[in-house]
């Protein structure tokens, strides 16, 4: 460790008072405090400038115990306060992607880990099913964050009534296929993006036709129903151990944040279904819904884009391999518009689940 180089990130805010070191990660807005009995701790930490080795630092701060310092460094690496500088960032990262680099510095232990994460994003293939009020925004968010291979699925054309809530569609695009329009507009941002366009419906035979390797599949399709499209995608993903994000979107009174599923690590779609069934059954015993024609269900773009935003952040963590930092798994998460708050209802992975349980179909 003595020859290693570390950097205290400039986004970290430090306060030292009364032997307590107060650390605030300003990008993540995470804060923690530790007891450190060393008066010069701030100066010592500030000497981790990305150029000096630990040995250089020890030579200046001779009164600190080497092992104590190693322990502190390991702890602060784990907390994403320090980052190990084991390689330089390429020039293009600095001029074009420094904000993404900084985003990943909060999830990585070393600069080579940051480079590897961005590389993973650029080589991953993500499938987005359904290019509506959520899918269009997720597609744009991922491409602007460095995704280079995307598979877009939708058999519909752009309508006038889509424009108020679907991203990257414009008046000149009316009546053109959604996959064509979105492809063209994504490529105008980064011409090197490779897009696989699928103008087809998501039926149960879908994946026998498009059985490619995907690193992540995101379901934003609600036709014929969210439950049906989710099942088709979840079955394929569970069988092939592909991470998936399903079921996000605006649903009248609430915005559902899509569930992230890592097969056999987090609660699967069937775990959710069974859990919610229990709650619903108690509520709706022997009740019929009145038939109504012409029901025009309300939709509000800022609510859909909240769902798109949070799905994208989890997607970035998945494709860069940061599974332990995923935030939308094992819970049904809703954004409540009146309260402007997030409600979380925990759904644990069920050992008896017929899909992912101990004797499950996809175990």
């Amino acid at each position, binding site marked *: 460790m003595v020859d290693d180089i570390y950097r205290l990130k400039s986004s970290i805010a430090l306060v030292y008072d009364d032997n307590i070191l107060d650390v605030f990660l300003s990008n993540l807005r995470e804060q923690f405090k530790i007891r450190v009995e060393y008066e010069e701790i701030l100066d010592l930490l500030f000497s981790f*400038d990305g150029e000096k080795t630990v040995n250089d630092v020890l030579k200046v701060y001779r009164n600190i115990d080497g092992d104590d310092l190693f322990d502190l460094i390991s702890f602060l690496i784990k907390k994403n306060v320090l980052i190990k500088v084991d390689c330089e960032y390429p020039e293009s990262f600095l001029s074009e992607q420094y904000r993404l*680099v900084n985003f990943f510095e909060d999830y990585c232990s070393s600069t080579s880990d940051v480079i590897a994460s961005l590389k993973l994003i650029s080589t991953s293939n993500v499938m987005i099913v359904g290019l509506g009020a959520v899918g269009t925004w997720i597609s744009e*968010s991922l491409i602007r964050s460095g995704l280079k291979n995307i598979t877009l699925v939708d058999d519909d054309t752009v309508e006038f009534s889509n424009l108020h809530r679907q991203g990257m569609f414009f008046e000149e695009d009316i009546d053109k296929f959604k996959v064509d329009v979105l492809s063209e507009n994504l490529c105008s941002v980064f011409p090197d993006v490779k897009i696989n366009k699928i103008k087809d419906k998501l039926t149960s035979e879908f994946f026998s036709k498009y059985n490619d390797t995907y690193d992540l599949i995101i379901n934003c399709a609600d036709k014929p129903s969210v439950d049906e499209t989710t099942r088709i995608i979840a079955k394929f993903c569970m069988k092939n151990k592909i991470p998936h994000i399903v079921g996000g979107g605006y649903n009248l009174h609430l915005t559902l944040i899509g569930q992230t599923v890592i097969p056999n690590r987090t609660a699967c779609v069937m775990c959710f279904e069974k859990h919610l069934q229990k709650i619903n059954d108690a509520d709706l015993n022997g009740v019929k819904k009145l038939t109504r024609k*012409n029901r025009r269900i309300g939709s509000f773009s800022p609510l859909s884009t*909240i769902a798109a935003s949070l799905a994208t952040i989890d997607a970035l963590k998945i494709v860069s391999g940061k599974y332990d930092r995923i935030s939308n798994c094992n819970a049904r998460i809703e954004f409540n518009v009146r309260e402007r708050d*997030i409600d979380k209802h925990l759904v644990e992975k069920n050992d008896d689940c017929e899909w992912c349980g101990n004797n499950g179909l996809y175990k």
Partner: protein
Amino acid sequence: MLAFFMLNNKYKVKDSVDVYTFSTDSVDCTRVQFYKINTREKLTIEIDSSFLNILSSLDGSLSLQEILIKNEILVDITEVGNLIDYLLGKDVIKIINSPTYICCSEINRYSRQISYFDDLIPEQEGELSQYKLMQKKIVIIGCGSVGGTIASQLVRAGVLNITLVDHKHINESNLVRHIYANKNNINTYKVDALSEHLKKINVKANITEIKSKITPSSNLDELVNDSVDLVVNTADEPYIGHISVKLGRYLWDKSIGLYVAGGFDAHLMSSGELIYKGITPCIDCCSNTFRYALKDWKPKYNYNSGIKSSSLTARTDVLIGGAGGTFAQTLYSSSLACMNIIDFLLGNLNGNNKVNKRGEFLTERCEQTWFEMKKQKGCSICG
């Protein structure tokens, strides 16, 4: 009482109301439950089973008379009148007037949002809310990632009169977060590129581009005339900086709203906050709220690291290890801001209880937190 005009009216069960039926001991009688999905209120009534056809036909397309004739419903008309009156009073159904506010193509364009507005402001027709939104005038200062996304989302929602203020050009690093930046408009003025993006969304968008930087000595009269409803400031330093204070004081006296947007540095997923006379604390009180809250927190940052002088780009704003930010985070910040801005423009200030608060989203916990702005003791402006 069934008045004559009632028969000619078109009624509709609100789109936000689920209707469930339960059979009862008597075949002639059905229990009906109306469930308002926004407020989660339930209303249960028992009605003559022959009324069910009327209920399921209340979709706004036919008049009450036409429904009765078409379904050959032979019921006591007075009772139908009583039922309609009762359901109107309970906000479960509404009268459909022929649209007079906006034209048919606009109703089609915004139909689902109009339905949403029906619920958002129950005492006002959704079409009227949409019409009002389309008349509003706003000024957006700063067309960076958050300013650009707010503008884009607002024009999609139907805000058509916007003045954009920014003096900068687009560079390569903006592709990551700017909704209007692409390979073809690098090096052009941000206001020009954003204006083009907005007009592509809606050719009727009336956009004014101002290429200048607001400084403490800028003359705000030239920027904000009295017909402006709201100024959105996205070009400021953390918490409430001197430009927001200058704007806040100026706009307060004119009863024009100020929205101080988030989305920067330590506030990547922040909502920002509204400043408006009679509703929120004044700009000085908000600024002091932060000052007092942070008075014992004097952090130090590592200035030894991270600044990269790049020989190729000669850029000075690249700070490695500094502020991060992705398009998704900007989108979150902008989405919260747009919800608040649309509530403000529609006068729906009681629609949420967060109007005096700044929201911060904590990604790692998936938690939305709120920080309240407080009127300070003895404030002569808002106290």
